């Protein structure tokens, strides 16, 4: 039991790496698609809409399996340079998680953009601030502040979602827990320890977001 703890802690690092990398990539992807979504180009708008529709509407496990097992069935892909990335379970997981969290993030940011009080933008316009500056000096910071509570939810969901990585041979926290169970046959004890580690990481995320929220609070 106690000897399994260092193994689980090591695996926690893999989980943390997976969740942080996919969240970082996901923020960029989400912002990109949110901007397309709120923009004027109809084609890009639709493209962004269907992207988030598909990735929010299908289970992440299915997405991961399509990317990992599905794409590997295509002979052409296997002989292309893409195989260098797709061969590795690690990158398959990152790609699936990024695409998934990107879809949710774009939706969170879109709704934040759309609920910005028109008054702020008009104030900027009346001061003669150029359009792109209005975006990243007024709209973007407000949208970020607005979407923080929803985004902290997404971070926690992603943390738990990374447990799916174990289904494609990655030894993350869940993967190692299952491995230890396969040799000790003690599912309850090991899963409780693994669950507590997840809970602790959630607590850290929660605290971190609370701090950022307080920092970004509007002056009253």
């Amino acid at each position: 039991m106690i000897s399994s703890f260092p193994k689980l802690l090591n695996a926690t690092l893999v989980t943390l790496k997976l969740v942080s990398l996919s969240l970082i990539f996901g923020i960029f992807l989400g912002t990109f698609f949110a901007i397309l979504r709120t923009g004027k180009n109809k084609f890009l708008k639709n493209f962004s809409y269907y992207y988030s529709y598909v990735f929010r509407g299908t289970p992440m496990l299915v997405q991961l399996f399509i990317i990992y097992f599905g794409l590997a069935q295509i002979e052409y892909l296997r002989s292309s340079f893409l195989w260098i990335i797709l061969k590795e379970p690690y990158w398959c997981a990152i790609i699936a998680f990024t695409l998934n969290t990107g879809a949710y993030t774009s939706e969170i940011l879109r709704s934040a953009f759309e609920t910005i009080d028109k008054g702020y933008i008009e104030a900027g316009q009346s001061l003669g601030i150029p359009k792109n500056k209005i975006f990243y000096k007024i709209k973007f910071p407000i949208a970020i502040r607005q979407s923080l509570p929803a985004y902290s939810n997404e971070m926690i969901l992603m943390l738990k979602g990374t447990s799916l990585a174990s289904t494609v041979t990655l030894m993350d926290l869940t993967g190692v827990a299952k491995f230890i169970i396969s040799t000790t046959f003690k599912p309850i004890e090991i899963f409780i320890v693994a669950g507590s580690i997840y809970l602790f990481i959630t607590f850290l995320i929660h605290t971190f977001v609370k701090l950022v929220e307080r920092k970004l609070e509007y002056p009253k």
Partner: protein
Amino acid sequence: MIRIKKLILSIFAFLFLITSNTYADKVRIATEGAYPPWNSKSADGKLIGFEVELANVLCGYMGHECTIVEQDWDGMIPALRMRKYDAIMAGMSITDERKKVITFSQGYADEVASLAVMKGSSLESLKTVEAVNLSKGAKKTLKTLTTALAGKTVGVQVGTIHQNFLESGDVGKVNVRTYKTQDEVNLDLAAGRIDVALAAAVAFTDYAEKSGKPVVLVGPTFSGGAFGNGVGVGLRQEAQFGSSTAMGKRDGQLLKDFNKAINKARKDGKISELAIKWFGFDASM
């Protein structure tokens, strides 16, 4: 107050009712349904395979009414211990490690393990003796394998004797990837994500035959040591629920019943017959 008491009592009564099937005399046998030809599922979702048919034969001999249930491999032993079913027939080899937590009937069939690669692999020409028994010492072959497998990625199903062997250090340090099912091992072997796979030899030949993929067996076949002593029926230890309790007594009796039935099935050639039907050769023991 009385009402609450009644409510609580009726909840307990209900819980007892829905869990009491574990006390019924029906014997529940678990199999994986994903390890052909040992056990698998037909296109219409029915459990089929060597062990499914053998289970029915054994139940007939024991005079028990049986149901065969499906269970994922990685939860097989824990669920047996939690009384979700009474016996395991899932190509499970009899090993000392497993004997610490469950008990086994006598073996009913031999599982021969082998490495497999895709045609054209650099390992295809791997030259070794034909069969290795780890209990009898096989230093030379293991040394050859250690050199051959150095730096290679090997795929196995999680929680199997094959994984235990690779992680025992007998063949040095290899990159082991573990999968939930043998199906997934086969898929990644064919895709080239893993260089070589280790499982029951029949699992590979069955896959090669059904998928048409050029999977070839290489190296020796393995037995003994980490590979255990044949495949048997996994059962709860009599002592787990106390040898004098009704549950413990029932578990102990079931072991005796299975041993008797296996003896009978072996003597009248039923096991050999089923083995030849499903494996193509007589794997009975």
